[in-house]
């Protein structure tokens, strides 16, 4: 069956058959002392080369780079000030002067989208990183160790799940001061149980794999088993969950901002702009479409980059990609 996944032999390696050699008929044929130094491991294609060979991944990376660049240099790039009010020029449709149009206070939407990029990206990335760094270890440990630890931590997670996302975030913001740090913390805490659940579920299936048992019989410390065997084998679902959460984090921030508990106006954020546009959907479509488009493109880029990474990290996909690369 292994025939279909045949990797091509390294050019010039003397054509050591991929499945060939040893178990083919005619016996193993001792490599002998001379064979030892002559058989260095086959060289593999570097990960970044494989990533670079995938046009979709490259496109996603370019988009994210552009978004990050805009986020960093928006104050200098934006054609108008973020809060330049021009009541006379309110609700203008897109034009050369205002490519994305203006909002109900006459502010330039292009400039606001550019200036909001920093805030939105920061909130999404920081809060999801927080959720990942707390949720994944909790999930893996509780799935691997099991017993009462698992029961207790999963009940806590259940309790957190029982609250609607927004309610929980609201409670956290209410306790602390509203502001960007609190927003990130609130969203991070809300997403932590999701990561814990995903990590635990995947760990439960990996934990019973014979290769984990082998590691156990060798006396491998459990922390090493988790790091080296469990974590790499659950990256697939975790990457998917991460890209999904990035999108939802941007939207959660929008909801919080709308309720006046997230990013405080006049600082713009994509989500905040979307919510502010709600009342004008019929009059000024551009007010909601452009910030929405910014969210869409960024999230899509995160997703596609995640897919590309997952493929390179998956050995089976990797074999196929390397075969094509050569």
């Amino acid at each position, binding site marked *: 069956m292994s025939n279909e996944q045949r990797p091509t032999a390294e050019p010039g390696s003397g054509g050591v058959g991929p*499945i060939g050699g040893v178990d083919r008929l005619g016996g193993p044929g001792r490599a002998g002392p001379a064979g030892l130094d002559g058989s260095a491991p086959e060289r593999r294609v570097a990960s970044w080369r494989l990533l670079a060979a995938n046009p979709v991944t490259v496109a996603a990376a370019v988009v994210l780079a552009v978004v990050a660049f805009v986020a960093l240099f928006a104050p200098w790039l934006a054609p108008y000030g973020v809060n330049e009010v021009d009541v006379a020029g309110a609700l203008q449709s897109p034009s050369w002067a205002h490519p994305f149009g203006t909002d109900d206070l006459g502010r330039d939407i292009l400039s606001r989208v550019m200036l909001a990029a920093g805030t939105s990206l920061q909130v999404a990335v920081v809060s999801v990183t927080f959720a990942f760094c707390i949720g994944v270890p909790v999930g893996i440990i509780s799935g691997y160790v099991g017993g009462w630890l698992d029961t207790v931590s999963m009940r806590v997670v259940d309790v957190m799940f029982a609250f609607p996302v927004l309610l929980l975030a609201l409670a956290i913001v209410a306790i602390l001061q509203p502001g960007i740090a609190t927003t990130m913390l609130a969203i991070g805490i809300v997403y932590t149980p999701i990561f814990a659940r995903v990590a635990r579920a995947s760990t439960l299936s990996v934990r019973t794999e014979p290769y984990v048992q082998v590691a156990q019989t060798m006396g491998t*410390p459990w922390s090493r088993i988790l790091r080296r065997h469990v974590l790499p084998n659950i990256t697939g679902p975790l990457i998917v969950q991460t890209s999904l959460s990035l999108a939802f984090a941007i939207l959660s921030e929008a909801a919080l901002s709308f309720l006046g508990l997230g990013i405080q106006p006049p600082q713009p954020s994509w989500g905040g702009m979307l919510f502010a546009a709600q009342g004008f959907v019929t009059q000024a479509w551009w007010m909601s479409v452009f910030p929405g488009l910014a969210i869409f493109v960024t999230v899509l880029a995160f997703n596609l980059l995640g897919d590309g990474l997952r493929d390179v990290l998956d050995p089976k996909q990797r074999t196929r990609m390397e075969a094509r690369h050569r």
Partner: protein
Amino acid sequence: MNVLEVADLHVSIGRTDIVRGVSFALEPEQTLGIVGESGSGKSMTVLAATGLLDAPGARVSGSSFLHDERLGDSQLIGQTPKALRRVHGDAIGFVFQDPSTSLNPLLTLERQITESLEAHRNMTRRAARVRALDLLTAVGIPSPENRLDAYPHQLSGGQRQRVMIAIALACDPALLIADEPTTALDVTTQAQIISLVRDLQEQRGTAVVWISHDLGVIGQVADSCLVLQEGRVVEHRPIVDLVDAPAHPYTQVLLAARPRLGGSPPPPVDDSGAVLLDVANLDVRFPVSTPTGRTHVHAVQDVSFQVRRGTTLGLVGESGSGKSTIANALTGLVRANGDAWLDGQVLLGKVPRDRRRRLAMVFQDPFSSLDPRISAGGAVAEPLRVHRLRPGRHRERVAELFDLVRLPGAFASRFPHELSGGQRQRVSIARALALEPDLLILDEATASLDASIQAQVLQLLRDLQQELALTYLFIAHDLAIVQDMSHDVLVMREGVAVEYRPAADLFADPREQYTQRLLAAIPPERPRAALER
């Protein structure tokens, strides 16, 4: 009139040719055996020939004619799904390898047996039930009336395979396809299934295509045999001729690789008779919680044995006999009562990590016992890192170990899925050796390999024992390979040690009935057809 006529069958997936021009014909009441290693295209040939091949991107060409008295002649290749459905289950019955997954766990046996009867024969529920009862009786299920309403999990593996056969024969098909039907079963069960199929075939005049990687099994069932290598027929002759005078070198290798009784292990490396592993009164119970309270399964009951340094102790028994549980208890994977000493040091309970290292284990399944995300070299280096062995020269040590198990060092950067089953098992052995253990536990280490590759890995293990003066605890269900490896043998049955004696004595004069039964179940060297002449 031939039941099935296959001519110039080709199958390719993508750019890979899987089957390259296979032709054969099959008469009623005849059995055709198809042998070859995994990947040789055995299953693909038969699936394509019966129109059951469902791989994405597969292209099939050639012709395959089925002659059936009721349905008339039909070409099976390039046929519409609807036309094929009429034939499948009615004129052709199928039995697959794994009886635990080919039955639906949520349906009673009756429902599963009567399904094809109701579909093809328009039988009423009542008539189909009567027929199902007949079938269960015919395949030798005890108290079939009660079993009709049973679910698959209530049956043993062998009984499930009997039910599969009953389902396949429900409509009295002209052709029965059996794809490795006994590979997942114990030797004793295998012998029963073989004779069951033979009896049913004689009574009903069914033609059978029997696929196996084991020529020993094929010898017991087939009238003629087709040897496949890389999708090509290398030999196709009556079985007796094939066994007596194999023409093709590949057939000769397959024949030589059959596990056969009468071998003997290499002389012990150490004659001192010093005991390395001493196990006394080992007892393992697994708690099982049911809705009505807790109970337990007594997996190993008061077993004691010793392994002398430089020798091999063979641990034999059918599945469920507790042999793997003993291995797991010794390596600390399951908790056990009793005592065990390795070289005088306590082994059960909480022991220092360094002592764990001295007892390494090779698992059965070479696919799942290697981490798919770690390269072969990384897997072998893992124990070196964990136990800080040979610091600073891991790379050289990995190369040495690869050389020791006769793998090219170039394979170190390959991931497990880029290696064949036998190569993977060599990596597993290298990883175990990296620990520099005193004792190596081989838990069915060759059971999931093809016969020819199994023979090579066994030879490797024998060589390694001589070179490195290793001590083995060799767990297997196949007495023939145990005889090739072991100096002492412990026979287990349902958690109890049945017979524990030096291998030479045990094989010369098995005392216990159970041991005799195990020995009798090994397929004899001569094909059945030769003995019937």
